[in-house]
């Protein structure tokens, strides 16, 4: 499918199955994630796209009864993120995640962004100041909050909270940034700001984004994966998926006949 400028791989799901107890939620998924590109996961509710996303940073390990099969290879070091020998904390240190509903910690704006650095043992206030500013600039919220870094983060508006959460994730220089429907709780203007940001961020970081909104997938992503009932139906360049989908089911979903 990619004839010219084949991008480098950042991660790759290989024969990935996932079980919530007895329920098989992901069915042998094979899919590449390309470096410094935005990959969108689309599909109807319950198709497993969030489940798939949350496998990357082992969020399923937090709850009992969940089980992975297969591999998610992470490059350049070719680590299997799902291997039982790999500490989920180490995995989460390398990945960042932004959730559906903004979830700033009950701390100041500054401490929210510094959180990940402190978790990693950074306590030098010079370094922290620098990184916090960088991250807030990277998340396009610096100008709005630079004069009130010591205010409590939950007092920000929803859109600002979500950009703060992006800054929090950016502060630790993640290799892969996971977005789980980051704009579904936001108004159109805040959504626009986040989409613009995603566009900006892909220069620095690989992004995997789950979205319910097909226009959003078309706008922000380079690659799109369509999932249905736990299966990966189709994966390809976004324009190809949207202009001439290969699979009938993808076409039905994209044209609004289903889902």
């Amino acid at each position, binding site marked *: 499918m990619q004839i010219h400028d084949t991008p480098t791989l950042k991660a790759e799901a290989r024969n990935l199955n996932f079980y919530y107890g007895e329920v098989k939620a992901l069915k042998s998924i094979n899919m590449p994630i390309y470096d410094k590109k935005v990959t969108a996961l689309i599909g109807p509710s319950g198709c497993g796209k969030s489940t798939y996303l949350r496998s990357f*940073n082992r*969020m399923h390990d*937090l709850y*009992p009864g969940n089980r992975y099969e297969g591999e998610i290879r992470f490059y350049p070091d070719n680590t299997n993120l799902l291997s039982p020998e790999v500490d989920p*904390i*180490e995995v*989460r*240190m390398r*990945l*960042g*995640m932004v*959730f559906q*509903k903004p*979830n*700033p*910690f*009950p*701390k100041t704006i500054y401490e929210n962004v510094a*959180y*990940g650095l*402190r*978790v*990693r043992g950074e306590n030098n206030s010079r370094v922290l100041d620098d990184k916090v500013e960088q991250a807030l600039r990277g998340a396009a919220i610096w100008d709005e909050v630079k004069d009130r870094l010591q205010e*409590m983060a*939950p*007092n920000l508006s929803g859109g600002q909270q979500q950009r703060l*959460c992006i800054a*929090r*994730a950016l502060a*630790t220089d993640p290799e892969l940034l996971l977005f789980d429907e980051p704009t579904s709780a936001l108004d159109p203007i805040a959504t626009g700001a986040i989409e613009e940001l995603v566009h900006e961020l892909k220069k620095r970081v690989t992004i995997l984004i789950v979205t319910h909104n097909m226009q959003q997938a078309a706008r922000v992503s380079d690659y799109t994966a369509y999932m249905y009932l736990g299966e990966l139906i189709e994966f390809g360049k976004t324009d190809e998926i949207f202009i001439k989908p290969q699979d009938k089911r993808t076409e039905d979903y994209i044209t609004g006949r289903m889902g």
Partner: protein
Amino acid sequence: MSANNASDLPGVSDRLAYNAMRNWKERLIETVLLAAAAISVLTTLGIVYVLVSESFHFFQNVSIIDFLTDTQWTPLFDDAHFGIMVLISGTLVSSGVALLLAIPMGTIIAIYLSEFANPKVREVAKPILELLGGIPTIVFGYFALLVVTPILQFFLPSLPGFSLLSAGLVMGIMIVPYIASLSEDAMRAVPMSMREGAFAMGSTKLYTAVHVVVPAAISGLAASYILGISRAVGETMILAVAAGMQPNLTWNPMEPAATITSYIVQVALGDLPHGSIGYQTIFAAGLTLLLITLVFNILGQWLRAKYREAY
């Protein structure tokens, strides 16, 4: 009313009658609820009224300055002194000992139950813990006097048979379940999305608990601490049994001393003539106690307002 309307009219009047009936019922229920609320408010007001009016008579005989600064409390002696600080010191020292034990222990138990224990352990441990809160305090009092004091004396031979330390420690054990249970409720009410956010940043369970869950639940924790303080300050039987009842102005937990509550018990058991100065001391002491708990309650409200849950 003409015949052609006959089919409509009963419908309308039925509905009106039904509405009237419903209004009447609503008002009845409202009155019952108001009465229930009024009883508790009126009781509180009645208590305050009795305390204030009796204390007013007391302060006509004893100056407030003496009451607050005298270092002796001998209201029943010929040479009567009315220094409430003597009783306040006993109350504060015993409460301090209790809270130094109960707040850390209760918080740690709450963190364990809410963040670390698997659901089965929690389902068993929490009811057992709450059972501890149901033990009559007189039992705790004798437990302090007959079990804890001898054990403490083994390590601290100079400890007298009655001491604030022993009573305070047992009081702390009594308060632990209140703090643990309420704190655990507050921490479990913190949404899972908050924890997921912390874990996604690479934090460990302990780091998440201490740096995210506890701050998010802080107003609930503060409320549980305030309840613990109120329980400690108002606790009577344990102190009456195990702390000795002699008024003693001391900040040393290794000594016996009376507290405000144990003094009230002691005096109320005797036969003081109604209206005598000794009788009025009960109310002056009671008013002091009320003011102390009031201060802590206001502090608790203020903390709650300041750190209200923002999620």
